[in-house]
Every structure is written in C-alpha cells, then in structure tokens.
C-alpha cells in the first residue's frame, strides 16, 4: 500500500497488543538486570559528568578566570549552555501540554519521555545561572527575595531575576505535571512489583491509586488543568530567557523579535533532542510499535516548521538592523556574518536553516538515519545560535577600543561536556527506573481502546 488513505486516521500505536502485553513491553527495562551496553553507556555519560564536575570544582577553587570570559565578553559558554538547555527543555511541555490540549493523540507515545527530558534539561540548565556567577556561594542566596534585617531586596527590574522565577516556576510545574501523569503508571508498577521495597516505594508514589472511575475522572481533570497551566509557561520561559538579552541596550541583543524567535528556536531544538533520544530508545527497547515512524515524521514536520521560523527571524534581524539606520546595530549583524565569528554564524545558519529543509522530502522525513543526523545538526546549530547571539554581540559593541575576541578554554569545554553527561546520565537512569512511555496513555490510543462503529476493528 503505497498510497495514503486520508479518510482514516493513521494508527498511533501499532502491533495490536493486549493491555498486559503493553504493560510488559514498557515495564520490561525496569524488570531485567541491565546488560553490558547499558553499563558502558552510563559509564561514558557519568565520566562526562565527572569531567564537568571537575571543571566546576576547579572554577570554584580558582575563579571564573579559568574560563575564556573577558571584559567585554562577560557572558559566554555558561550562558550559552544555559539557554541551550532551557531550550531543550521546551519540547517536553509543549508535547505534553499544548499538544494534549490540541488533542494530538500521536503525542501519547512520546509525552512521558519528552517530559522527563524537560525535567532533566531544566536541571542541567539550572546549574549554569549559579556557577556562572563570580561568587556562586552567595549568588544562590542573594538572588532570592528573602526577608532580612538588612533591608536587602532583589531588583525586580532585572531580567535575571525574572529568569530566576520563570525557570523555577517552569521546573516546578513541569515536575508536578510529570508526576501526576506518572501516578497511574506507579499503580501499575505497584501491582506488578514482587519485592517488598519496590512495593512500598511504588505504593507511596501511586498515592493509593485504584484505577477507579472516580480516580480517572479526577485525574483527567487535574491533568487538563495542569496542561492549561503549563501551556503559557512554554511560551513564557523562553520569552523571559530572551529578555535577558532583549532588555539590555547591547546591539544584537536589544531586539523586539527575540521572544517569538527564542520560543521557536527552543521548540526547534527541543524536538530535535527528543527525536534523537527517542530513536535510540525505541530501537534499544523494541518499542517501534509504540512510537511508530508516523510520530517521528510529525515531529520532523514541526522541526521543519520551527526551523523555517528561526530562519525567518535571522533574516528579519538583518533587515531591521539595516532598516533602523543605526550604525552600531547594523555593524553588529554584518560583523556576525562576516566578522571574526563568521564561522560560528554560518555553522548556525546552515545547521538551522538549510539542513532542516531536507525534511520537505518525505523519504528523508520518514527514514531513521537521515532524520537522526539532521536532528543532530539542529542541536549543534541551536547551540551555535546562542553562541552567536551571546558572544559576537559582546565581543564587538559600541566602543571599538574595548573589542576583544573570546576564546573558550578547556574548562569551558569540560563544563559543556559535563552538562551533556548530566543530562544523559539522568535520562539513562530514567529508562531504568520509570516507564519511558506513559502506560495509561498508550493504552488509550492503542487499537480498540476507542469506541468505534466497527467494534474496534480498524482493518478492512
């Protein structure tokens, strides 16, 4: 069957498994002793994490001077990494909340994993605002508005403070949302658990879930409300992260296009990262049926869409810079494309704008290997986008006397590697300790779960 029948919904879950089979399949990784591959994988990621930890420890001991930052370039890799990871954290909530509200059922297979990634990405991101400060030991306290006898208060005019609230709110809501979704699955796990300890833990986390109709009713309502709450956050977090730049007066940062541009970019990179990870997961755990190619294809379409939006933003920035007639503004953009950091700019541009255009081709959109490679390019490109925005603008701003070229140091890279180490270590542990796919939700979209006119049979 090479033609598509548009009169019917495509199936979101293949394989026509029974409910028990679904349980078994999803929970399988939790039950068996991991094989050698897993230990090698977690060995690598935790080594990366250790490298990062050493980098951070050295930075704490000697000072931020171990990084490449200098006097015009006050922000560099740590902030680039922060924005990158917060961006990655966007896909999860978008998939679980916005797509939930939009009744996009294809999301059910990937929602759990995407949400977990959101949590881990935000945890990874949250390291950076603290460690990038000169005095992290006081930054962790002084950035919070706690009442004190000294009459010290935080500055609510500062976008950095908005950031503190935006990201922490986002983290909290994402975490709650994720946990609420996990409750029925914890109940399944509890019911299946054989060991005493497991049973106790799962019992606690399942909050006495008994699969009763009333439970489901409350659950669905809570989930809906939380989805409603999380939806604006998807837009607000990166908007506020973009304010860190847009509220300044620096050419290249001081741009009104930043909020939508950042949100689009965040979704873009988040989807790419989810896609990358899912491809690995579904292969390793034989979940091809639960996450069919069709789901991945839909994600690729979103990558194509957001990539094009990002490309539009790049061009529009350039146009406005020229149109503004402001010399420093215009110079900043010319300098980005043709100055000393042009290598970073064109890396960004090709990875984010040119390469995703390949997704117009259906064959590429639906083949695992090409889409995997393209998504990696997107992630690289989006990291460079933040690098271009943060570093090129700072390195050459108003007074040419202060211009300076920024070069990252080995410590900068160690911390970058460490952030990937943290993220993937958490992800790997997640696949071992929690169901990577929402059991309850996947059951809801598997064949026969929905009432139909022909007895649940979708076949001719």
């Amino acid at each position, binding site marked *: 069957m090479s033609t598509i029948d548009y009169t019917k919904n495509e199936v979101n879950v293949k394989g026509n498994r029974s409910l028990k089979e679904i349980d078994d399949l999803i929970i399988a990784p939790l039950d068996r002793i991991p094989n050698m591959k897993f230990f090698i994988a977690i060995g690598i990621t935790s080594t990366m994490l250790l490298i990062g930890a050493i980098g951070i420890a050295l930075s704490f001991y*000697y*000072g*931020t*001077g171990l990084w*490449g*930052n*200098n*006097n*015009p*370039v*006050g*922000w560099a890799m740590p902030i680039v990494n922060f924005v990158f990871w917060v961006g990655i954290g966007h896909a999860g909530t978008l998939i679980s909340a916005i797509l939930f509200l939009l009744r996009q059922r294809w999301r059910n297979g990937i929602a759990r994993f995407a949400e977990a990634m959101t949590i881990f990405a935000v945890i990874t991101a949250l390291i950076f605002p603290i460690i*990038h*400060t*000169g*005095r*992290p030991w*006081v*930054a962790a306290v*002084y*950035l919070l508005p706690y009442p004190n006898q000294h009459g*010290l*208060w*935080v*500055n609510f*005019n*500062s*976008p*950095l*403070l908005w950031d*503190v609230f935006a990201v922490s709110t986002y983290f909290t809501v994402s975490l709650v949302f994720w946990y609420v979704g996990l409750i029925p699955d914890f109940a399944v796990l509890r019911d299946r658990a054989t060991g005493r300890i497991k049973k106790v833990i799962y019992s606690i986390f399942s909050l006495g879930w008994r699969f009763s109709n009333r439970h489901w009713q409350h659950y669905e309502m809570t989930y809906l409300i939380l989805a409603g709450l999380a939806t604006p956050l998807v837009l607000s977090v990166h908007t506020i992260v973009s304010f*860190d730049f847009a*509220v*300044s*007066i*620096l050419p290249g940062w001081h741009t009104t296009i930043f909020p939508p541009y950042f949100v689009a970019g965040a979704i873009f990179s988040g989807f790419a990262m989810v896609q990358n990870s899912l491809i690995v997961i579904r292969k390793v755990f034989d979940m091809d049926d639960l996450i069919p190619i069709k789901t991945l294809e839909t994600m690729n379409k979103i990558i194509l869409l957001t990539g094009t939006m990002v490309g539009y933003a790049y061009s529009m920035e350039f146009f406005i810079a020229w149109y503004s007639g402001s*010399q*420093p503004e215009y*110079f900043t953009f010319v300098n980005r494309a043709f100055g000393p950091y042009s290598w970073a700019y064109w890396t960004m541009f090709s990875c984010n704008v040119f390469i995703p255009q390949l997704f117009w081709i259906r064959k590429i959109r639906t083949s695992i290997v090409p889409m995997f490679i393209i998504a990696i390019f997107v992630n690289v490109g989006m990291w460079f986008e933040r690098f271009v925005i943060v570093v090129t603008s*700072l390195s050459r*701003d*108003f*007074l*040419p*006397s*202060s*211009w*300076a*070229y920024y*070069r990252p140091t080995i410590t900068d890279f160690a911390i970058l590697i460490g952030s990937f180490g943290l993220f993937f270590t958490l992800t790997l542990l997640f696949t071992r300790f929690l169901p990577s796919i929402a059991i309850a939700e996947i059951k809801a979209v598997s064949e026969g779960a929905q009432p139909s006119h022909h007895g649940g049979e979708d076949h001719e």
Partner: protein
Amino acid sequence: MNNSVDKNKNQIDLPVVKSESKPSHWRSLDEYNNTSTDNQLKVKANEFAEGAENFDIGSKSKVSRRKFMALMSASSAMVMAACTDYRDKGEIVPYAVKPEEVIPGIANFYASTLTSDGSGQGILVKAREGRPILIEGNPQHPISKGKLDANGIARILDMYDPGRLQRPRKIQGSKLVDSDWKVIDKEIIQSLNSASSSGKEIAIFTGKIVSPTYAKLIEDFKVKYPTTKVYSYELFNDNNKQIAWKKSTGGNNYPLIDLDKAAVILSIDSDFLGTDGNVNENIRQFTTNRDFENPTSYSRFYQVEGSYTLTGSNSDYRLRLTPENYLDVVASLVNHFASKQGKPTMSGFKSLESLAKENKWKHEAASKLLSDLESNRGKAIVIGGKQLPVDLHVAINYLNDLIGASELYRKSESNFNAVSLSSDDEIATLANNVKSGNVGVLINIDINPTYHLPYHFTADNLKKVKTVVSLSEFENETSNNSNYVLGINHDIESWGDAKIRTGVISTQQPVIAPLYDTRQREAILLNWMNGGENYSEDIYHKYLQSNWETNIYPSLNRSVPFKEFWFATLHDGVTTFNETSIVSTEVNSSSVSGIKPTNKSNYSVILQENYFIRDGRYAGNGFLQESAHPITKITWDNCAMISPATAKELNVEIGDMIEVALNGKAIDLPVLIQPGMAEKVIAVDLGYGRTNSGAIGNGVGFDVTPFMTSKGLSKWIYTGATVKPTGNKYELVATQEHHALDDEFLITEVRKNAEGEVTGGGETFARARSIIQETTVANYIKNPKILKEHEHDVFSITKDFEYNNMKWAMSIDMNKCIGCNACSIACYVENNIPVVGKEEVGVGREMGWIRIDRYFEGSPEDPIMSNQPMLCQHCDNAPCENVCPVVATTHSKDGLNQMVYNRCVGTRYCGNNCPYKVRRFNFFDFRDNLANGHYKTESTKIMMNPEVTIRARGVMEKCTFCVQRISQARQNAKEDGRTLKGSDVTTACQDACPANAIEFGNANDKDSRVAMMREHNLGYHVLDYLNVKPNVTYLAKLRNSDSLGVKSEHH
C-alpha cells in the same frame, strides 16, 4: 550640679542608725530593737571561720596571694591567647603615646623630593597612620607644580615590593648570601684603604646626581680616598644637546624654553611631552596654548619624526620622515631664512618640497610650516630631541637664531647640574680602567652597568676589579657580577635635597623608617668615610643639616634663624631664592659649516625611551609594566614598530619575529605594525629584556642595548640595518585590539588623488558613533556651534530623577589631554587596583578603572590619532543599574553610580550592558594570581589605601569618582560647619593630570568650571544617542590644521 551633690549627701546620711532611737525605717525586728549589734560585731571580729585565723598563707607558699592572682590570670590569659586564632594578631594597637601629628583615620602629607631617578621632582607623600600610601606632586614646587610623572606615582609600589633587597649581601663562592653591615663595612673599608694606598682607582659609578649635598659628600669622599673618581651615566641623556649648545654659542647650558609663549612649535623628533626634558613642565606649558576658550591664540605644532611618539600624536601636522633626513628639513629651513638674512647657508641638502613629496605629507603642510615660521618671528621655536646627533642640534640652534626663537629662551632660570653627566669618552676610560685592572674598587650606585653598557661591564671585565660594590634597591644584572650588593633605601625612606634649576632647591625627608635592614646610599658612603665604626641612622641627616647650615643657608640670605628656616623648608619641601643664571644666546653662524647630509642605507633603527619602563629601572614595577604604551597599547613587552608598507615589504604581520642585524649584531624582535611610522624605519624601546629584575620584570620584552654602539648617527639612531623575517611567532598583548585600521574597519574608503595624497574618506567608528568629536580651529572660530548643529534631541519616556543639591560630574578637555597615562597609574595606586600580568591582559582582563582609548583616522600610512580617557560615566540612566538582579549597583542622590561589593554576586550583566565597557570583573584573586602571589605579601598589603575596599574574587568593580575623597571632603565640611562644594573634592586622576585636563565638581553649581564645560559648545557626551545621560563631558579637540586628514567634518 550642687543639687545632685546634696542629694548624694542625704542618701549617705540616711542609713546611719542612731543606737538610742528607734529607726523610722527598719528591715527586721533585730534592727528595730537594735539587738543584733553585738552579734554583728562578733562576726566582724571573726571574719573567717574557726581556725581560719591561724591560716598563714606565707607559711604555705612563697607566692603571695597577690602574686598568685597575677600568675594565675597571666597564665590563663596566655592559655586563652594560645588557643584563639584571632586573625588580627594584635597589630591594631592604639598609641600608648600618641604622636602629636597623627590622628588615626586622617591622612598626613609630607613634602619631599624624588632623587634616585635623577628627576628631582617635588612630591607630597600621603601617609595614613604612618604608612605612605600615595605619592603626589608637591603643589608648592615651582617646577612640577603639584604634578608628578607616571613613574613617580608608581614609585610607591617599589617601596613595598617584596623583591627589594632587604639586607646587605656579599658574594660567597659564586653566590650572593645575606650578610651583616658590620662585616661588610669593615671589608669594604679595607678594600678602599688598600686601593687608595696602592694607588688604584676607586670608581664611583652613579646615575644622575641632583643633590648638592650628595655632590659635596662625594667631594669629601674624594678627600678621604684621593684615588676616587666619579662617573655619572644615564642611558638617556642630553649630552648631545649640551655639546651642540657649546659648539653653537660657547655656553655650557642650553636654555630652557618658554613653550607657553610659543605660537608655532616645530619639533624635530623631540618627545618633549613624553620623555624629553622636564616633561611635566613641558606638558603644562604646551597645553597652555591649547585652550578652547582662547581659540585665536591656539598654537600650531609640527612634529617631524620617524617613529610614532606620544608627542607626535599630539601634533597638528605630523611629518613622517626617516631620521637620516631630519637634517634636510632643518637645513632647507635654515637656507630659506639665512638666504633672506644674508647669513651662511647649508649646501647639499634636499629641499622641503621634495621631502614633502617623497614622504606624502599633507599637501599644505610644508608651505604652512614655512609661512608660520616666517610670520611668527619671536613666537616660533624649533625643538630638537635629546637623542639627535650633535650636528643636527647645531643646525637647530642656528635655525632658532634665524627665526628669532631666542626670545622664547628663558632668561631667568636654567638647568642646574649638581654633577655633570660623564661624556662618552669618560665612560670609555672607566671601562678601560676596569678592563686593565686599574680599578681597585668599583662602587655602582643606582646604576646597572652590566645591562646598560653590555660591551664594557661584562662579567669577565668586572672580575678584573678586586672589589665591586653595587648599591641598589633591587637586584639587577650588575648584582650578579658584584662582590657586595647593598640594599639601599627607597626615596621616601631617605634624607636628601635636590637642585635641578637655578633658584630652586628642594628637600627630601623620610616618611617611614626603612622597612628593611637597608641604608640610604649617602649614609653608606659617609659611614665608610667615617671609618665604619659608629653608624647610626641619622648620620646623613646630620650631614645634610650641617651642609645646609654651613653652605646653603648662608648663600640664601634669609632673615630667619637656620632652625626655623630648616623646618619651614622641610615642611614645604622646597625653597626658592634669587640666583642669576647665565644663558648665552649668541649663535655662531659658522658652526653649521661642514655639516654634511646623512644618507639612508637600508633600514634605520630608532632606539627610544619607554614611557614607563624608562631605561629599564622600572621593569620590576607592575603598575608601569601593565600601563599600556600610549601609541601601540602594548603592555608587558617592547616590539619593533614598523609601518604597514614596510610590513608588506617584509611580508610580516603583527607578532611575527624579525631578525634585525645592525653592525654585526643580530637581535630577534616581534613586529608591531604601527600606522604612521616612516617607511623602512624600525623603532624599538630600550629598557626591556631584563634578566635579573625579580618576579615581575624578568624576561619581559627584548633587550636591544647591544645595538648601542658608536657607529650610529647618535647612540640612539642607526642606519644600515638589515631585516629578515625569522618565521617565528610571538604573542604581543595589548589593551586594545590591533584591528582599528584594517581596511575593513574603515566605514568609508580613503580617497586619494593622483599624487597619492589623502583627500578624504577614511571615516572610522570613532567618528560615526560620535565617540570622538573633533574639528579644526578655523572651523570652530568660524562657527562655534559647529559640533552642536547636528545634535538630536533624545527624550526619556519616564520622569528623570531630580538632582537638587549636589550632582557630581567630570569634564575632560581633549585639547589638553595628551594621553600620558598618569591618571591611570594614579588611579591604580589610589584605588588599590591589582596588576594582572601579561597573560591576563592577553585575554582582556586588565583592571584599570580609567584607560586611554586610542583611535586612528585617515589612511594607515599617515593617520591622525585621537586619545580618549575612558572611565565610568556615572550615567543618570545607567544601564548597568537596572539589570543587576541583586541591586549591587545603585545610584546615589548626588549622582554617583555606586558599586556594593559585598552584595555583588558577579553575574557580569552590568558589564555587558555598559556601552562604555568600563566595568572590570575580578576573574581571579588577581593579587594571588600574578607571579606566585608576588603582590599578595605582608609588605604590599600595607601599601593599600585603607579607605578603599580590596575587592574579592568574583565581584565587579569600576571607577567610583573617588568616593572616598568625596566622603572625606563631606566630613571636613561638616566639621567646619559649611556646605560641601564641588571644588572641595579632587579625584586622583585629576590630581595626577599634568595638563589639568580633568575637571571635577558639582554640575549644579553653575559657577563651577565643570558646569561651564558641560554646557560648552565643544562639550559632548560619548554615545549620547543612547540617552544614558553620562556625567563625563568631553571637550572636543580642536586641531590647528586645515583638515582632519579625512573628510573635514562629520555630518
């Protein structure tokens, strides 16, 4: 008062109980009945319990009760003291007997003089609780008038440098080991005696001596040791100028010039604003005629030079020329005037027109020079650099005579040399005597012959001298070849006097007892003369005082008794008197006959004096090493400056190594492409490449003293060098990137006419972004509002804060600022700014709060340069303030942008958002980071200004407008019961500025100068279109030329 006493009496009277009567108030029945009296008496008699009466403490122990208590409390106090880790180890102790003049928290100022560097500058030393923390110029000194060069300001760091020689050392085997003055004195006196008796020469080899008493001491020394000879040497000296003056006029002393009366100045490669002559005085006089309020008498200044000097950067017309052709310029001018006046001319030289064409000078420059010299007779002067050959000076003297410049020669005063510098022949004689073993004792005082005269005073040659004694503050290259290395006192630990001019004599007094076991150089000599037995710290003090009493005081004809006079002079630091100076001005016109043109062959090499390291003596001073070269902005290095075209010819880029071979000596040097250099000229700073200059100075830069031979045009100028690239690379670090003149960074292209002259274009960022605003004098006179014409009104959408009372503001007059960096060094000292070192400057982390930005404009071959001191602008709408998440940077109601270091967490957002990029972040604990914590030692800690917080690692810092001085002034005003005025406060940079370019005060005080400058037609704010409302106003520079080298104006 009486009342209260009476009350007390009553109270005391009350409890007296009369035994017969019943008390009106009673506490118990016993008391009421008075029955207990007996009992009480009994108790009183047996105060102690039964048996206690017989207890004789004396029989039990020899320790009395009192003694026991004392021992007990002392031992418990000791135990407690031993257990505590109280970090202040008892160093803050109030005075038991407070010195009358010291009030804790209030600074004292002592007037003194710098003598060790041969400058004789009058200084004021600011001391807090007995610790000197800042050296400033002495306002009462008639020559320096309260100003001090960058080196003098930075000298405070030498004082506390942990690398100072802390005790005398003598050689043992091949190593210098610490020894004792007694031992060393004895041994040296023996050597002196044996040299003296065996007829061997005792050579005192010293730097410039400015002290008359020191000079007399040396004479006395000669009497005691008759074989003594004195040699005085400076790497940079004005001997050629002196010789030429003698040749031209027969006079001994070339005259001082009244630069402030000159309308036209032609300088032939004289760096008189940087290194040549009395720089502070030159700057003051030169800038007098660069007055924006008086544009019609604005002087015009032409500079002919091959290198690019600070002075050249301040010229109206900079005429690039290879040094071989300097003589042609002078000769063609001589011929022009001499032929008119019927005086002897000079033949065989190129004409001015052909030089102008060859070197692509601005088309009007040559003709303007001629007409200016002609029409300003008596108001025009030609100045020759001290490094120029004698012939050239002779020609310049003649030219000055022809143009009537003798009217600008100062008649009332002249230079005074306590001891004249030795001629090159005399130094050669000393070298020969050393080599031939005729010298028995060589005493090096404040001089480094092994480094400065590398061919003469080698280790091998010095071995032929039985006893080599080196007196210096720091170890140096000569120390390694000496038998004795004696640490001497810093200037502010020493007594002395100085006379550098006729009619002025200044005194030097110690402000602190010697930190280490060192002695002042004069005292060491004096002690040897006295037999070395009875040294006391005040021997030279007494000698000085008696010399003044017997020799100097009587010649001054003062009416006050000596004691009063002496203390008054010490207090003021200087005294003036009438002294006639003989200035010969009759120039012998035949002196120029026989002067032949010099021919250029291959590359020329100019060895120049560095503005901060000088002859290398300051190589160990971190402030000076880190100070950016005013032209190249290079720190921590010297380099071979070459023009862009020469670089192209050699096919080299910045940082490529070239091998410069001169008279058989080849040295590898890193290239710096310096726009504006003359073609095929290589300029290198001397004084670098020190090998024994401590943790800071070792291995910084490249030593080019081996180039100094007798085969040059002069000792500092050579021709016939060959150059080839070596293919190696070297990292030069600068505080500014070297891209500002790459073609891609010119916003408009340079336009040239058929002859290759620049006709326009070449507009740069500095102009397009209104960072630098300039205009010509003529345009300004024509239209005073020329710079205001294109001003746009920017408005705020929020209500501005109203500053009703004080509003601190600064104005910087760019007509006066010459870019010397004194402000920056003064700021380092005043505000405890750390030195970060080459590596950190290389990654852009220098910490200076005020820097001098440099911008070029025009073509890379012949640009004009603009300076701009850049510091925190204390903006009303400060963009740094609203982005700080923890409110660590705030605005005071008197207009200061403040930093709260304790609150700062170091997000660096403020720095990012500062359009002027004046905020500096402490990426490390920089004091600890540099050279193994060289500047984080006990001694450097006590140098810190106690009024300024030492910033921790991880916080942001920036210019505070010297808020500590504002607080001090406010406190003083409060004490005096008056309101604070803007003029009560001067900032450290303002005090240091030799040109008085910086004004500081209350912008709301309409009568103040700072307010006037804010409103002035030439006043502008950098990046005004951002509407951040900066409070530092710059007064646009006027250039006294026809055009700015580019499009005449920016519109």
